């Protein structure tokens, strides 16, 4: 194929990519959606607008502005109609091209190699019309690569056939699909060990079946002891989150929650007993009682956290069969989750103050999850390596999980020597501001706020001393210091993209920061970004990481031998919410 923009000749069947609206060469293969597509698009939008519209009809008083809602609905319908009319797709030799939009036009090219799942969704209405919603999904990202809403069953079958036929080196054996996109491949609704024996087992195609065969019987890598489960509850403090959520729900109604009958009774009881207690005791006793009550409440919260942890992480175990990592945990609901080791993108080690107190660390995994896996929630996604593990066991456990990880051999590089100065200055500025506000508000007692500078400066020192990065043949590691310490471990070949960034403050001090991105859904919101690097070091590091990312991507493409998907030979239609998974 020549490098020039295809001007109609479309060599080797690559779809025309010229000026939008110019259908040169496309006519023969161009496809549209089903003529009734607009209806389904509209229904999809109406589902979201149904409640307001009903409210308008029921409570409306015929005011002029209420008509605006109707006008908006009509405009929406018109827009849906026009957009569905403008939707075109066609198949090249190696890619699917989708063109849509009337004013804001988009032409999307999806290489076949990146399509790993073809998902059909059929509701009763779809079946009445003999159509289906088709979603083409890849491993990463939160959105499908393409959504076709809706096409006829015949068109869907044609598309599947074309996908299968036009890919030159489609792996015929289960092994090919097995390797998938080298760690990005996600079996949609394919039975992971989590749902072994599930209802859809019979309908899933051969490749998925092959995936279940383990290389050898699984060995146990880690088991969470009862004591550590309790400790995890104490550390996680999820009880606080639960109580906060409960308060949120209570007050969300807008009214006074005391109006609720059950709570009213409780509130009255509390007030009366408190009143009689206050009347009968002196100030010292009251302060003591208040302190006891406060401590008691905090203990109760921690106790609640422990109960929650016992329920969710009961008998946590991590197994490995040579290829696939599996976790299993839970008391009332037993959750099994798994991922092939190749899908592991990043491991995060967390160590807070309580962790340090107990001599433990938390190990979380980031796994490349497909769209459906994300949408379906946490069930099948591997999240933990170990919720809580003794610090001394961490290196061995990580090496067992991923032989490329050798924690002790990492050569940690410090950040810029002026990092402490910047952090400390920022802390002092914040403390000064806080003190000024407090002094203005309550007088000289506000000066006590100056004491907060002490833990702040300790945090700054810890941050500056502990924050570091390391790069070896296998691994890129970022350690973010502080009272809560985070370590990110990323296999070099898993890096998706690299960002070099400098804030105005960074530039004033000749610094910059480097972020690496991995696929999947992160369990830890913090990104693996090294802050406060010397600008030259940062640029050099970014260059090396970029090269690693490019090499990793190349290796992945080569290993997969493109394409990494395979269409199934059998379908499962028995899914409850009408989803037909064609797992690749």
């Amino acid at each position: 194929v020549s490098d020039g923009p295809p001007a109609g000749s479309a060599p080797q069947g690559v779809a025309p990519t010229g000026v939008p609206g110019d259908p040169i060469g496309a006519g023969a293969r161009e496809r549209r959606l089903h003529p009734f597509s607009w209806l389904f698009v509209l229904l999809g939008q109406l589902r979201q607008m149904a409640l307001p519209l009903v409210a308008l009809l029921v409570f409306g008083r015929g005011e002029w502005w209420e008509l605006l809602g109707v006008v908006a609905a009509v405009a929406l319908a018109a827009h849906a109609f026009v957009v569905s009319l403008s939707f075109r797709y066609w198949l090249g030799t190696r890619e699917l091209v989708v063109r849509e939009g009337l004013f804001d036009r988009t032409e999307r090219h999806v290489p076949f190699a990146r399509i790993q799942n073809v998902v059909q969704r059929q509701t009763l209405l779809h079946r009445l019309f003999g159509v289906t919603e088709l979603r083409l999904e890849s491993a990463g990202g939160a959105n499908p690569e393409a959504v076709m809403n809706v096409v006829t069953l015949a068109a869907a079958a044609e598309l599947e056939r074309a996908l299968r036929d036009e890919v030159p080196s489609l792996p015929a054996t289960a092994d090919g699909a097995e390797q998938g996109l080298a760690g990005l491949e996600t079996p949609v609704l394919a039975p992971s060990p989590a749902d072994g024996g599930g209802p859809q087992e019979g309908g899933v195609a051969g490749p998925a079946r092959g995936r279940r065969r383990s290389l050898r019987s699984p060995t146990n890598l880690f088991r969470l002891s009862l004591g550590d489960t309790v400790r995890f509850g104490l550390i996680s403090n999820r009880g606080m989150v639960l109580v906060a959520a409960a308060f949120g729900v209570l007050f969300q109604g807008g009214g006074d929650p005391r109006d609720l009958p059950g709570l009213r009774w409780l509130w009255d009881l509390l007030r009366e007993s408190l009143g009689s207690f206050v009347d009968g005791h002196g100030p010292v006793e009251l302060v003591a009682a208040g302190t006891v009550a406060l401590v008691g409440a905090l203990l109760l919260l921690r106790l609640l956290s422990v109960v929650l942890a016992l329920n969710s992480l009961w008998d946590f175990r991590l197994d490995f069969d040579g290829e696939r990592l599996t976790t299993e945990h839970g008391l009332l609901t037993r959750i099994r989750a798994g991922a092939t080791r190749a899908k592991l993108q990043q491991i995060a080690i967390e160590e807070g103050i309580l962790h340090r107190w107990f001599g433990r660390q938390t190990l979380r995994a980031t796994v490349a999850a497909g769209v459906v896996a994300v949408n379906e929630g946490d069930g099948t996604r591997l999240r933990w390596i170990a919720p809580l593990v003794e610090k001394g066991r961490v290196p061995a456990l990580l090496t067992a999980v991923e032989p490329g990880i050798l924690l002790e051999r990492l050569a940690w590089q410090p950040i810029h020597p002026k990092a402490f100065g910047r952090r400390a200055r920022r802390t002092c500025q914040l403390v000064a501001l806080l003190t000024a506000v407090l002094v203005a508000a309550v007088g000289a007692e506000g000066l006590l706020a100056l004491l907060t500078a002490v833990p702040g400066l300790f945090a700054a020192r810890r941050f500056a001393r502990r924050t570091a990065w390391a790069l070896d043949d296998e691994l890129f590691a970022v350690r973010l210091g502080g009272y809560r310490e985070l370590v990110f471990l990323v296999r070099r070949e898993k890096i998706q993209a690299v960002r070099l960034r400098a804030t105005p403050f960074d530039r004033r001090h000749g610094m910059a920061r480097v972020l690496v991105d991995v696929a999947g859904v992160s369990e830890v919101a913090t990104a693996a970004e090294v802050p406060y690097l010397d600008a030259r070091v940062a640029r050099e590091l970014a260059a090396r990481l970029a090269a690693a990312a490019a090499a990793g991507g190349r290796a992945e493409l080569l290993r997969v031998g493109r394409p990494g998907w395979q269409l199934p030979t059998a379908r499962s239609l028995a899914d409850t919410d009408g989803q037909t998974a064609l797992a690749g």
Partner: protein
Amino acid sequence: MSRVSTPPEDPALPVPAVPAEPGAASPLSPPAAAPTEGAAGPSTQPVLSLPEATTHQAAAPNTISAEPGVRADGPAAAPTPTGGSAGTPAAAAAEPTWALAIHPRLGTLWVVAAVVWSSLAWLAVATPLVVVLGVPLPGLVVVAGWALVATLAAAHARASFRRYRCELAPDGVRVCRGVFWQSEVFVPGARIQHTEVNQGPLDRRWGMAKLVLHTAGVHLGTLSLVGLRHGDAAWLRDRLLERQAGGAL
């Protein structure tokens, strides 16, 4: 795989094919002939030019690196655009990094948008002050404030446009942007999941387009190259996917 041996592929790299852009007579000239103001040149400027010869040096005081010569991708020595076959990784490494031409209208668009938005913001602040709170602001102050805000916004937009740079490296695409908060995002070509070329009504009128590269990443999942010429965007898209398919990237 067969892509690698296709004759037009590699020799064409320094001199890629003509984009389907009516105004663009010369899609690419040798880097030596590249104009110094790559970002805002006339529409007949080359599609690609060596970044060292363009905005990179102009923006040197602002760049993140203290040493603009250290490039994130290539050898420190000035790369030669006549590097041999790109089919082998070694040869690919010898390829230079190209700066993609930005459509000159983009700068105008950004400035106009900045003026409009800052004016609206000024209205949103000044109107409640005067009408609701009854603050006695003289008309002159209102107008002067508006002029100041709009000028600052326009200057910022202008600076953003000058700093905005899209590069095609041998193994991926890099986008540099930001005036105060500066960033450089690199996406390897081999990591691209799918691409989009997007055009609004104004884009179509001006032959401008936005190329969006999607990766599987969490934080940098999409990389937008705005303000490319439409022919360039399509060319770049095809080239990236092409090389991906050929394994040469």
